[in-house]
C-alpha cells in the first residue's frame, strides 16, 4: 500500500512538474515532434496523401485509403464515421490548391476548392500521417448555408479566381534566416493576441509593411472589406488598408476571445505557420469601446458569434507578410473535436 501511495505521489509530482513547465511559458509546445526518420513522410508524400484522400472523397469510398485502426475524422468540429458528411455529397475537386506541409510533425494542411452537389465550396483539410497511414482527418467545409455573413458566397469562386496561393507562401526562406518552430509559432500568435480585445495600443511591429490578408478568397486589407462585422463604415476596420493600420485602429475590440489556438503546421523552411482557431464575439458590453483617438464606438455582432477558422501565416525576418484564412460561422463556443473543454476555451497557443 505504501509503495502504491509513493508511486502515486511520485507520478503526481512528475505530472505537476510537467504542467508547471508548460503553463509557465504561457504558450507551449506540448508534444514536440520527433525528428524525421527513414519511415517518415516528406512533402511529396504528404501532398500525395491529400490527393489520394480527396480522390477517395469524390469517389465516396474510404476503403481506398491506408488508415490506422484508430483513425479519427471530424467535419466542422463534429466527429463522424468516415464516409459520412462531405464524403456523401462531394462531386468534384476544384482548381484552387494550397498545400502546407510539416514533415517533422507528419502533418499537412490543404486549402482548396471542391464541388458539393455541383455547388462550389471551400475546404480545409488536415491529415496526420503515422507510418504512412492516415491517423487524423480534420476538415472544415465552408458552405452557403452555414455562413449568414455571406450567405451566397463560400469563398470558392473567389479562391479559384486567384488561381493559386500567393507565391510568397511557396518561397523558401534562406537557410541563414530560418527560425525555430517555437519562434515561428510565437510570431504568428502575436496576430491573435493583438486582435483579441484589440485596443489599438499594442506593439504591432510584427506586421511587415506590405502585410496583406485574404479571407475566404477575398482581400481583407485593401480598405474595402465588406465582411468587417456589419459595422457602419466610420466604425469599421475594414475600410482601412493594411494589416497594421487595422490593428492600430482599435476597431477590432469586439473579437473577445481567440481560443483553442492549435498550430498544426510549422514549416520553418518556408516560414509558414498554420493554426486552427475560434474567434468568439461575446456581443455583450464589449461591443462598445473607445478607440485610441478617443472615439466611443459600438461595433461587432449583436448576438454571440463564433468563427471556426484555419489561418495560415507567412513569416519572414520576424514579421508577418501574408495571412490567408478560411472560415465560417459555427455554434458559439464550439469545440474543435480535438481539444479538451479547458483547452478549447483557453487563449493559450499550443503546438
Amino acid at each position: 500500500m505504501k509503495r502504491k501511495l509513493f508511486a502515486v505521489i511520485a507520478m503526481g509530482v512528475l505530472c505537476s512538474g510537467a504542467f508547471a513547465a508548460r503553463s509557465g511559458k504561457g504558450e507551449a509546445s506540448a508534444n514536440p515532434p520527433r525528428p524525421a526518420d527513414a519511415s517518415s513522410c516528406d512533402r511529396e508524400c504528404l501532398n500525395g496523401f491529400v490527393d489520394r484522400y480527396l480522390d477517395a472523397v469524390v469517389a465516396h469510398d474510404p476503403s481506398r485509403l491506408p488508415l490506422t485502426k484508430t483513425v479519427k475524422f471530424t467535419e466542422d468540429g463534429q466527429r463522424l464515421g468516415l464516409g459520412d458528411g462531405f464524403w456523401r455529397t462531394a462531386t468534384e475537386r476544384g482548381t484552387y490548391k494550397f498545400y502546407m506541409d510539416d514533415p517533422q510533425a507528419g502533418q499537412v494542411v490543404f486549402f482548396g476548392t471542391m464541388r458539393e452537389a455541383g455547388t462550389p465550396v471551400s475546404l480545409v483539410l488536415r491529415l496526420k500521417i503515422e507510418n504512412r497511414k492516415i491517423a487524423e482527418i480534420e476538415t472544415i467545409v465552408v458552405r452557403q448555408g452555414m455562413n449568414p455573413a455571406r450567405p451566397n458566397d463560400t469563398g470558392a469562386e473567389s479562391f479559384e479566381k486567384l488561381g493559386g496561393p500567393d507565391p510568397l507562401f511557396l518561397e523558401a526562406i534562406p537557410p541563414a534566416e530560418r527560425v525555430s518552430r517555437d519562434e515561428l509559432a510565437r510570431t504568428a500568435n502575436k496576430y491573435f493576441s493583438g486582435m483579441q480585445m484589440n485596443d489599438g495600443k499594442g506593439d504591432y511591429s510584427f506586421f511587415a509593411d506590405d502585410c496583406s490578408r485574404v479571407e475566404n478568397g477575398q482581400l481583407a486589407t485593401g480598405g474595402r472589406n465588406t465582411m468587417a462585422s456589419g459595422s457602419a463604415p466610420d466604425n469599421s476596420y475594414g475600410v482601412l488598408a493594411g494589416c497594421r493600420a487595422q490593428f492600430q485602429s482599435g476597431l477590432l475590440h469586439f473579437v473577445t476571445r481567440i481560443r483553442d489556438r492549435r498550430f498544426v503546421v510549422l514549416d520553418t523552411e518556408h516560414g509558414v505557420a498554420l493554426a486552427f482557431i475560434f474567434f468568439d464575439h461575446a456581443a455583450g458590453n464589449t461591443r462598445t469601446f473607445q478607440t485610441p483617438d478617443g472615439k466611443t464606438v459600438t461595433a461587432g455582432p449583436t448576438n454571440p458569434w463564433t468563427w471556426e477558422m484555419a489561418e495560415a501565416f507567412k513569416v519572414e525576418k520576424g514579421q508577418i507578410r501574408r495571412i490567408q484564412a478560411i472560415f465560417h460561422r459555427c455554434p458559439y463556443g464550439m469545440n474543435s473535436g480535438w481539444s479538451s473543454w479547458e483547452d478549447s476555451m483557453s487563449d493559450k497557443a499550443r503546438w
Partner: protein
Amino acid sequence: MRVKVLACCSLGFLLLICAAPPMDTVLAADRQCNRACLNGFVDQYLAAMVAHDPSRLPLAKNVKFTEDGVPLKLGDALWATATGLGAYKLYFAEPAAGAVGAFVLVQENGTPAILELRLKVVKRQITEIETLVARKETTSFLNTDNLIVPRPVFLETVPAADRPPREEIVSMVGKYFDGIEQGNGDIVPFDKDCIRIENGIQTCPSSASSSLGALSCGAQLSTKIFTYIQSVSPRRFPIVDDERGLVLAIVRFNHPATSQTVDVPGRGKMTMGRYSQWPNSTEIAELFKVKDRKICEISAVIVTATYKAPTGWE
C-alpha cells in the same frame, strides 16, 4: 441509530416525535420543489440572465450549462447579450423529476429571439441548464410577431383520469418522430385538427396557397416531403407535465443531403427544403400537447446545427 430511537421512545413524552416520519423524509419533502417552486426558479433564472449576473442563482457546485448544444460557462452567450424579456412565457414542469421548462421571448441587443430553457432542480439548487436560442441568424425561419401570449391549450389541465402514464405518452410522441423518418403520418396519433407552430410560424396544417396545398399535419408527413430528414436521433424526453398533458422532446434532425428532390404521390418530383442542400442538422425543442390520447398541438424551437453536432447531454 436503533439505540437512539429506543432511547427516544423510552422517554415517553417524545412519543409523538417518534411516531412521525424519519427526519430525512421530512427534509426531502420540504426540499421537493412543486410547480410553483419550479416556475419560481425559471423566473429567477430569467431575471439573473437579464441582469447578466449568474451569482444571483442557487447553483449546485457541478452545475452544467449549454446553449445550442455547446457547454459554456454560465454568464457567457445569451447571458451577455440579453437585454430584456418579452411578454410571451410558456412554462411546463414535472415536479417529481425536479424538471421545469419554458419557451420565452427574449430581447437580445434589441432584437427578439426565442429561448427554450430547461432546468433541473435538486435540493433547491439548479444542477442542469439546457438552452436553445432561435435567432434570425441561427435558424432558417423565425417570426416572433405572434408570440404574445401562450396558446391556451398548453395551459389547460387534463382530467386526472385521462392522463396516460409517462411511458405511454412518451411513446405516443415518439411516433411523431417515427412518422417523420418513415414519411408516414398514419402511424402518428394526430388529432384531426392538430396544429404545429415552429419558431413562431404555423407550418401545419399548411395553407391552400403552399406548394403542397392545404394538408393536415399527418397528410403532410405522408407526402414524403421530409425525406431529407434521414433520422431523428438522439431523442430525449426530459419533461412530462402530466397535469397538462405536455411532453417536451429535445431531438436532433439529421440531414445528410444525399438527395434534394423527392417524388410526392400525386404531385410528381418536388424540391425539398433548404436543409436538403448540404449536410446539416437541426437541434429542436418540441412541446407536444396530448389530449384524449391524441397529439393536438405542437410548438417547436429550432436551431440550425452543424451536421450531427452533439446536443451536449448525450
